[in-house]
Every structure is written in structure tokens, then in C-alpha cells.
């Protein structure tokens, strides 16, 4: 009886794990399978570096080039990261080095609230506040890459803050008492010991955050203007994720358009895999 229960339970765990892995692997396989037919119609270089995206032949020929979308995705993500990292590291210093244990217990979940807010609400607030403000500032429709960048930056904050402050807390506990014992002021030690020592881990969190930023769909889509243009700070543009979200509903199943959207999704996926790979390699090299 006892042995039976153990066996059944083990089987359950093994079975569920196998199922999980198979389902997840199948998702990846399926996306690749649906994406590949694109490249029978369009060459890989035209797809990646072409600037014309004309899925339906209204005027002239159809054309599938996602260069602008890729650039927009990268542009918005790096812009957001640059803004988020400035505030994020500062807040992480505060949480790890200033706040008491009790304060941390309250502030961590507080900052985590940002991660819980649905992206559609970020988009909503972006529309009614940021976009309005940009219109007043003289930008034609208000939608622009900068607006999307600011929203994304806020969305990245909780991830950056929590991972950076976790690192810095460990570093602080290791070095700060020694530094203080030598009579070095707390803030000088933070600036000259703790920050440089945490740098490698901060790099890692930054790469991870870039990954999150690139996959974000709704918030970006709602404020970026969705026009196939090369991204400029105050101009409209369109990210890969927005193209998929906006056009999937109208694409005819089995058409090149449909496959091209999958291919765009696959490109996004490959970008993210590359980032994951870089993280894994860096983790082994830097931290070991």
C-alpha cells in the first residue's frame, strides 16, 4: 500500500513534468513550423532588412520587410532601459543600504505592485496623460516612441529594482561592516565599494530587462502610433509585437501574410533566446 502510493505519486510527478516539457517544446516547434513557409516567398535578407511592409496588394506589389519593426522594438527597449536603469539603481541603493529590515518588508511589495499592473492599464494611462501632454508640446498626434519608452521604463522598474537591490544587499552585508570599521563614511563606501562590486549582477539584470521590454505588446502598441517608419524619438513607429497583435485578426489563414506574422514572432523569439543565451554565458563567465 505504502509502496503503491509512492509509486503512483512518483509517476504523477514524472508524468506532469514530461507533459509540461512536451507542451512547451511543442509550442516552440509549432511557431517555427508556421513561420518557415514565409521564406519560400520572401528571402531571409529581404524579410529582415526590407523596409516595405505591404501585406495586401492595394497599391502595387505585396512586400514583407520588417526592418523598421525590428529597429523600433530595439529602439524602444533600449530607450526604456536607459531611463529605467537610472532610477532603478538609485532606488535599489535606497532599499538595500538606507531602508531598515522592516521598511524593506513594506517597500518591496510596494514596488512589486508596479509589476502587477496590467499592461493595458499602462497603455490607458499613457494615452490619457503622456499622449495628451505630447500633443500640447506640439507633436501632431501625440503618439511617439518616447511615450512608449517612458511607459516601458516604468514597467521595467520593479524587475530592475528587486534584482539590483537583492545583489546590493548581499554585497553590503559582506563589505560595509569592514569599511565602516575602518572609519570610512557609509555613503563613500556605497559609492566606491558596493556599486562597483555589484556591477556584474546589475549588467545581468539589465539584459534580462531588455528581454522583457521587447516582448511587451499592449502598452507599447497603444501609444507608439503604429506607422511603419524608422524609429525617431518623437516620431511614430511600430514594434514587432504590435504588428502581430494588429494584423493577425485580418490575415487570411495560410496566406503569406499569415506566415509572415509568425515569422515576425519567430524573429522576436530568436532575439529573446539570444538574450537568454548571453545571460547564461555571462553568468558562467562573470560570476561562475
Amino acid at each position, binding site marked *: 500500500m*505504502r509502496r503503491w*502510493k*509512492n509509486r*503512483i*505519486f512518483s509517476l*504523477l510527478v*514524472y508524468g*506532469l*513534468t514530461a507533459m*509540461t*516539457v512536451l507542451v512547451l517544446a511543442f*509550442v*516552440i516547434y509549432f*511557431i517555427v513550423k508556421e513561420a518557415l513557409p514565409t521564406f519560400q516567398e520572401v528571402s531571409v535578407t529581404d524579410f529582415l532588412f526590407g523596409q516595405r511592409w505591404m501585406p495586401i496588394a492595394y497599391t502595387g506589389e505585396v512586400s514583407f520587410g520588417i526592418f523598421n519593426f525590428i529597429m523600433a522594438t530595439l529602439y524602444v527597449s533600449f530607450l526604456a532601459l536607459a531611463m529605467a536603469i*537610472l*532610477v*532603478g*539603481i*538609485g*532606488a535599489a*541603493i*535606497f532599499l538595500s543600504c*538606507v531602508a531598515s529590515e522592516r521598511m524593506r518588508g513594506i517597500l518591496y*511589495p*510596494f514596488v*512589486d*505592485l*508596479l509589476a*502587477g*499592473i496590467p*499592461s*493595458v*492599464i499602462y*497603455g*490607458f494611462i499613457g*494615452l*490619457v*496623460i503622456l499622449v495628451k501632454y505630447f500633443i500640447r508640446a506640439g507633436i501632431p498626434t501625440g503618439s511617439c516612441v518616447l511615450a512608449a519608452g517612458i511607459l516601458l521604463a*516604468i514597467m521595467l*522598474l520593479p524587475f530592475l529594482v528587486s534584482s539590483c537591490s537583492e545583489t546590493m544587499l548581499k554585497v553590503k552585508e559582506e563589505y560595509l561592516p569592514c569599511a565602516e570599521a575602518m572609519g570610512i*563614511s557609509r*555613503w*563613500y563606501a*556605497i*559609492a566606491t565599494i558596493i556599486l562597483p562590486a555589484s556591477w556584474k549582477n546589475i549588467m545581468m539584470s539589465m539584459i534580462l530587462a531588455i*528581454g522583457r521590454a*521587447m*516582448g511587451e*505588446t*499592449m502598452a507599447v502598441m*497603444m501609444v507608439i502610433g503604429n506607422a511603419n517608419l524608422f524609429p525617431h524619438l518623437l516620431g511614430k513607429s511600430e514594434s514587432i509585437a504590435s504588428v*502581430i*497583435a494588429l494584423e*493577425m*485578426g485580418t490575415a487570411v489563414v495560410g496566406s503569406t501574410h499569415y506566415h509572415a506574422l*509568425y515569422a515576425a514572432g519567430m524573429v*522576436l*523569439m530568436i532575439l*529573446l533566446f539570444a538574450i*537568454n543565451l548571453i545571460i547564461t554565458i555571462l553568468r558562467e563567465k562573470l560570476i561562475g
Partner: protein
Amino acid sequence: MHWQARLTKYWAYLSMGLVTAIILFLFGYVFYRGADTISWEFLTQAPSGAVLGEEGGIWPAIVGSICFTATAIVLGSIPAIATALYMVFYCKNRRIKGLIRMVVQCISGIPSIVLGLFAYSFLVRDLAWGRCILSSGVALAIMILPFIEVRAEKTFHELPPQMVQSSYALGCSRWYTVWNIILPACKGELVSGIILGGCYAMGATAPMIFTGAVAYASVPKSLMEPAMALPMHLYLLLAQGTTSMDTAYGTAFVMMALILLSNLLATIYARRSQKKWKVS
């Protein structure tokens, strides 16, 4: 004071101040603008009016969101926790572990819109489930699975290893140990992970756009029907221009309130049960 020291100090205080201000502003703004719309009728009636959401409430969207979230939680959390158990307590082969970790990481890297795409093509079209709660639920479950798995694995790793081995040392089998020691000891963290995963699923719009969420539907009666969902509803209200701004603010209010509540619940729950074995 040295200049580096002063700079760092201002930087830290300013940043934390800014973060706090942003959070308070986001919640404050939505609650302030949405408060007027919230009424018993708004919460319990179906939307009506010539244009979507001009009049009436959001009841079907609330029920729909609960259905989507519950489906995602049931389908996502059980395999996630089983996988975490396998990774920490069953698997001794490093290669298999590495492989599973890679697959899970890849999935957590897939943008939610691509998961929506998958569910649309495979479940809605190929398996002919049609647009329904179950199709979206599967997409959402795949989305939150890595989130819950990673948290669960971390929690299991943090258990004192000797506590688990003590149970093996008494001759008790794995299932008895898992069931009577590991799961009870990690209950708080696991439940809070599931709640936060549920939050994540509730707020996600991208995976359900093509797979199960629709502009208007009555309260769903089965999982094979499409339904309304709060984030989708908000998105559609915004997409049609400025006719239903009040309803939009009201919908946002309800979502933010739900998020705040579940985060609070998750935090309290995790903290209360954590003390049990960490303080000794």
C-alpha cells in the same frame, strides 16, 4: 563629504522618491477618476447602449475575467509545481535538469502575443475548439507556467536540506515527505506565487485577443464559450475613441482594485507562513 558620496546619496533618495511618486500617482489617478463611475449597477449589469460601454456595467467582463484566470491557474499551476518538485527532489541527472530549465526559460522569454498566436492557430483553428475560454486559458496557462515554476523551485531550494533529509532518514518515502513536509512548509510561498501568477494572467490582453475574449457576450455558461474580459474590454473602449471614457476609468478602477487586493493577500499570506521555519 566627498562628492561621490553626496551624489550617490541624492541619487538614492531622489530615485526612491520618484518610484514612490509614480506608484502613488498610478493608483491614485485611476482610483480618483474611476471612483465616480463605480456603483452597484456598474458592477452588476451588462454593458448596453448604442456604442459599446456607453451605458450599463461590466458584470459579464468581471465574471469572464474570473473564468479566464481560474482556467489559467488550474491548467498552469499544477504542472508548474510538479515540474518544480521534479527539478528539486526527483531529478538527479544534471543534463535533464539543464534541458528542462532551458525549455522553461525559452517559454518565459516568448512574448505573450506569440503565445496568443499559437493558441489561435493550433487550438482555435486546428483543434477546432473555436474562440472560447479554454483556448485563451491554455495560452494564459503557458504564459504563467514558467513564472510559477521558477518561484516554486526557488522556494523548494530554500528549504533547509536537512529537514527534508531527516524525513528520508526516518525511512519515509518521497511522496510522504513531499506531502507532509515539503508542501505544508512551502504552502505560503506557493499560494502567493499562484495568486501573483493569476494576477499576471488576469491583466494580460495579448494572449486572448484572438482566442477567446470578445467585445460583447453574456455571462459564460461553459468553458467552450467566448467571454468578455476586463483588460480586453478596456482596450476596446479605448480603441473606439472618447465616447466611453467614464466606463473605461471605471473598468480600470476595478482592475487596479483587484490587483491591489491580490498583491496584499499574497504578501500577507507568504509572510505569515514563512516565519514558521525560517525563525529558529
